[in-house]
């Protein structure tokens, strides 16, 4: 039952005046098609409902930026470590907290250029003892190579332990800061580009406006809805509610 066509009626219909849109109308529509296409030329041609990827991508970039900023903020010299350092200095050498990043680059050079005497090493190693695992390992290797370097090896191992401890603390800092990120991202996403309103809640809102007698707003919203969803089919009930006529 796909075709109910009556040839005679079809012929009569075709014999009616062959209406054509005027050239000016054609020109306006084609110009609009080109202009709107150029105005919204997609970079990667997002498809249909996937256009919100742009907003999501922007929000994700923002969240990442905020997260990195927060992380950098929290990664400043650990007050806990700096507070305990003097106490450690007053105690034994093995209690020395790991030298922070200040000496990271200088540490290997110091380790390599230091004299072989363990007595002379001890004060020199206090500062660059274990900034990172790499110089620590290097110091450890040297200590093994040199029979007299037992204190150095002990320092290095201690420093390695400190470094691991530090890494663990950083992990816990990251873990603490992680729950805060979605909120920041959520707010950012909301600021960047709200996703298009879904048809059903939108219609409900229009119906609500209509029921409150705010017809001008309802008309505007309905027009906007029609622009956003031109082929959306309203149910009779919903149509009566949103049009109110």
């Amino acid at each position, binding site marked *: 039952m796909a075709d109910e066509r009556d040839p005679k009626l079809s012929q009569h219909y075709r014999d009616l005046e062959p209406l054509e849109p005027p050239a000016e109308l054609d020109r306006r529509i084609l110009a609009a098609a080109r202009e709107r296409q150029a105005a919204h030329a997609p970079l990667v041609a997002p498809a249909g409902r996937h256009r919100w990827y742009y907003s999501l991508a922007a929000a994700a970039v923002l969240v990442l930026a905020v997260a990195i900023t927060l992380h950098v903020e929290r990664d400043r010299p650990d007050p806990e470590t700096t507070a305990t350092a003097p106490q450690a200095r007053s105690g034994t050498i093995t209690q020395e907290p790991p030298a922070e990043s200040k000496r990271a680059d200088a540490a290997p050079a110091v380790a390599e250029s230091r004299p072989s005497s363990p007595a002379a090493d001890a004060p020199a190693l206090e500062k660059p003892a274990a900034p990172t695992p790499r110089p620590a390992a290097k110091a450890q290797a040297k200590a093994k190579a040199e029979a007299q370097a037992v204190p150095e090896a002990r320092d290095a191992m201690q420093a390695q332990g400190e470094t691991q401890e530090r890494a663990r603390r950083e992990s816990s800092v990251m873990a603490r800061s992680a729950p805060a990120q979605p909120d920041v991202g959520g707010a950012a996403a909301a600021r960047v580009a709200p996703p298009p309103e879904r048809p059903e809640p939108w219609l409900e809102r229009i119906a609500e406006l209509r029921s409150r007698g705010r017809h001008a707003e309802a008309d505007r919203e309905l027009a906007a809805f029609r622009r956003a969803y031109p082929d959306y089919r309203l*149910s009779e009930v919903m149509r009566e509610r949103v049009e109110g006529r």
Partner: protein
Amino acid sequence: MAEVTDEELMLAYRGGDAAAFETLYSRHRARLYRFVLRSVKSRAVGEELFQEVWLRVIDARGRYTPQARFTTWLFTIAHNQLVDHWRKRGLTLVALEGDDLPGNSPDPADQAQARESLARFAAALEALPPLQREAFLLHEEGGLTVAEIAAATRTNEEAAKSRLRYAMAKLKAAVDHG
């Protein structure tokens, strides 16, 4: 070589090919124009609606997915535009009165029988209830099947079929019996 389908053209336009829209427009401009004008009967209103339909097609290109024939989609948008238009003015305004379309006025008495028949047909088409006329126009101009008419006008197939049959019966009666 197979002709590029409407759906492919629309997808190409969505992807940034403005020329695809021009091809698409050239294919459907006349039939959509006739459909709209014969639905509202006022040339000025019809042209405004016609333009609005195409602008909505343009604006909705990003959401277009070829789930149905492009023609069905296009005429669904046109239907929605017409419904909005009718609702704003009240259905009675599209009943019998309105601006005459050029060529719909009766021909002089000395015209041939065929032209009289055609005039009766035009008058009968104009006198059809809007929903029946729309079903007929969607069928003739849009080339929509009963199922597609039902989809475009958001009704069931039985209702669409019934509207179309009533329309055709009235038109046939007008042509056959004057």
